[in-house]
């Protein structure tokens, strides 16, 4: 297989692999873009990346293929997932467009750009493939290493500096120094009084209801649900279960049963 890499055209196996995995990669990319939830996007992207790793391998970039899987898919994508979990779900997840004309412009630009790229690639007269047989003769990793530590040694060193800087930068950015004294409970309550909203603590879920699950809004005295009683995350996700109607229905059923038990209903009348 390695020897064939020099060929101008590829083996049928590779072609098959390309068409199948390429389709998967494109679908993954599309899903990354169009999935509503960030977690799903991340997972789709990971899929695409793994496919790309396979393509690297197929193109003779063994080292990169492995690094792609280990570093990219393994580390970077996991970092993404962590952040997704850290940040939680927000309204930003909605695919609904807020800027007028943005989506159409974006699609137009994308389409135009894609066509242009395709045209460019098609236009370029790519005739001969040298193949990597010679370059990979001493082993792919050794070849890369030889280049990195000779020709690209400065760039390599600088990327090292870059990584250090990025690390420190991330620490600085996420580190939060407490610059002020923590406010006491008294101050907090005073602030609430001053602001004039939610003077008492937020209501607990399920008050006045027979449910106390976190996703069920408590009912106000008039029987309407209060969204305040449900955690923000659930609210944003739209995962509130409304049981106000249930309560009434249950009550009705209860009354009916009680009536039946007390035989206040008149089956004979009902049967009439």
């Amino acid at each position, binding site marked *: 297989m390695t020897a064939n890499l020099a060929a101008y055209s590829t083996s049928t196996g590779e072609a098959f692999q390309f068409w199948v995995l390429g389709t998967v990669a494109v679908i993954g990319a599309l899903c990354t873009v169009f999935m509503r939830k960030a977690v799903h996007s991340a997972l789709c992207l990971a899929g695409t990346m793994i496919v790309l790793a396979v393509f690297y391998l197929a193109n003779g970039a063994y080292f990169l293929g492995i690094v792609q899987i280990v570093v990219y898919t393994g580390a970077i994508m996991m970092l993404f997932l962590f952040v997704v979990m850290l940040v939680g779900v927000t309204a930003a997840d909605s695919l609904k467009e807020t*800027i007028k004309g*943005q989506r159409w412009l974006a699609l137009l*630009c994308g389409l135009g*750009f894609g066509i242009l790229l395709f045209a460019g690639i098609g236009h370029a007269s790519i005739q001969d493939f040298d193949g990597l047989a010679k370059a990979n003769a001493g082993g792919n990793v050794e070849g890369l290493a030889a280049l990195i530590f000779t020709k690209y040694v400065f760039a390599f060193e600088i990327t090292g500096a870059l990584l250090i800087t990025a690390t420190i930068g991330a620490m600085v950015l996420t580190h939060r120094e407490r610059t002020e004294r923590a406010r006491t409970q008294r101050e907090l309550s005073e602030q609430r009084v001053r602001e004039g909203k939610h003077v008492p603590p937020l209501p607990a879920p399920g008050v006045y209801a027979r449910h106390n699950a976190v996703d069920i809004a408590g009912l106000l005295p008039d029987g309407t649900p209060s969204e305040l009683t449900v955690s923000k995350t659930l609210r944003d996700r739209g995962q509130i279960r409304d049981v106000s109607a249930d309560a009434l229905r249950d009550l009705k059923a209860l009354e009916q049963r009680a009536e039946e038990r007390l035989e206040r209903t008149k089956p004979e009348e009902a049967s009439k």
Partner: protein
Amino acid sequence: MENLIALLIAAPLLGAAVLLCGGRRLDAVGQWIGTVLAAASFVVAVVLFADMLGKSPEDRTFTQHLYSWIAVGNFRADVGFQLDQLSMTFVLLITGVGSLIHVYSIGYMEHDERRRRFFGYLNLFLAAMLLLVLADNYLLLYVGWEGVGLASYLLIGFWQHKPSAATAAKKAFLVNRVGDMGLSIAIMLMFTTFGTFAFGPLLGTEGHPGIAGDATEGKLTAIGLMLLLAACGKSAQVPLQSWLGDAMEGPTPVSALIHAATMVTAGVYLIVRSAAVFNAAPDAQLVVTVVGGVTLLFGAIVGCAKDDIKKALAGSTMSQIGYMVLAAGLGPIGYVFAIMHLVTHGFFKAGLFLGAGSVMHGMNDEVDMRKFGGLRKYMPVTFVTFGLGYLAIIGFPGLSGFFSKDKIIEAAFAKGGTEGWILGGVALLGAAITAYYMTRVMIMTFFGEKRWQPDAEGHEPHPHESPSSMTIPMIVLAFGSVFAGGFFSIGDRFLHWLEPVTGHSEGDSPVSALTVTLATMVLLVVGAGIAYLQYGRSSVPVTAPRGSLLTRAARRDLYQDDFNHVVLVRGGEHLTRSLVYVDHTLVDGVVNGTAASVGGLSGRLRKLQNGYARSYAVSMFGGAAILVAATLLMRAV
């Protein structure tokens, strides 16, 4: 000796500079400095005059060249003086009457706290007026011309706290400016036509004819008309006469000196000085005589109706200058008599004004003649001097006015043709009206019963004779009014004196001199008689009766002022107001409109910058796409 000419001007100029810059320290001695320097100028004039008399008539032109003033290309204006017989006549009149009026003012302005300033202005006037008559080119003359305008402005508006005085001063300056425009255009015309505007080469001197006659008649007529416009402004001739009546707002010595004896006659000087131009432009001359004739009647009619003694005299001044302008327009037959009348008029009109000032001085500054009456008993000296001036102006035989005015009427007839008859007739009619209005003034002021009333604060006026500083100049002027005409005429002294400068020719009069004199006498008696019947026989009402249509028109200066007001002032106000509006809305509107439309466009463009990173990303991406497209296209091409 010729170097003394500059001293003539320098003395009063120094006085003006010292008095106006000197500050309050000089308040106590200001009047003396002013008077002494004016008198010094007079002394220099007399010295020069004596020197001039000692020379033969051909050598009587003195020149003094000081320095080159403006020299650009072939435009050359020098500061130089030319003193010939014509200038000498004026210099003597100006410094002589001027000095007398300085003396008079010492008494008249005694209680004015700004007296120092007044004498400074008077000295400034003298300097400017002397510059006017001594200049050896038109541009320098123009300096003096506007200089007297400035002095006149300052003096009319001397009592600036009175809005009427300030307005009158402004009006005088503005109307004069219109005339000045004529003079400057005349100078420009001379420069383009002749390449010079100096008297020497242009007008010629004795024995050396100038080049003035070499131009086409059209050019000369244009120059002449422009000079006439200038003369009209300065000498209060129709249609630029309206300022003179208002100018009486100034202190009376000013009215006597500037608005009767000297400055207002500058127009006559200009025309006579430019004789060489006018002689070659008959059309311009005709217009000059017409202007003179019209003004003669205009002034006289206005003078008949005014109750303000000074305004009545102002109308008279206008009318008398009309005589002079008429005479000057007649050409060589009239120049000498124009100047002669100018000199005699300088005496008697100055005397009349000083007399009027004396009356006002004694009457708490009252000017309404209807509130005078019977003053001869209280002010004998004033009465006598005023009376002599009166007799002189109406042309009582033997007195100054008789000789000078009579000659002008004769000369008008001598013009010949229909014009001669019309002009002569106008001049005769003028003489009759002069007799009428002057008799009216005389009777209303000095005769009849006393009509004065207490003023608003209840002060009864106590008419009294003025101090000697005021009466002495009046006596001197009265002396001049009586004898000057006779002195000039006997042996045609004045004619021979001026002839070398102005030239002279005897016209061919269709009417004999005796007839003219007799006709004048008759009309004089008629005019004075009517006035006596109207005002002497019956008592004068203290409040003016409504009067006939003509009287009412004359009181309002024959509606000429109203015309000015409606057409020029109101029209001008509307014009400026609408222009201000146009400037703000249209001219500036275009600019602001451009700015606003640019602003509007950017406001719309700004919406593209909505702050959303994704929007910017689209444009970046679109830009990248365009770049790729451009690259590919360039490759393809």
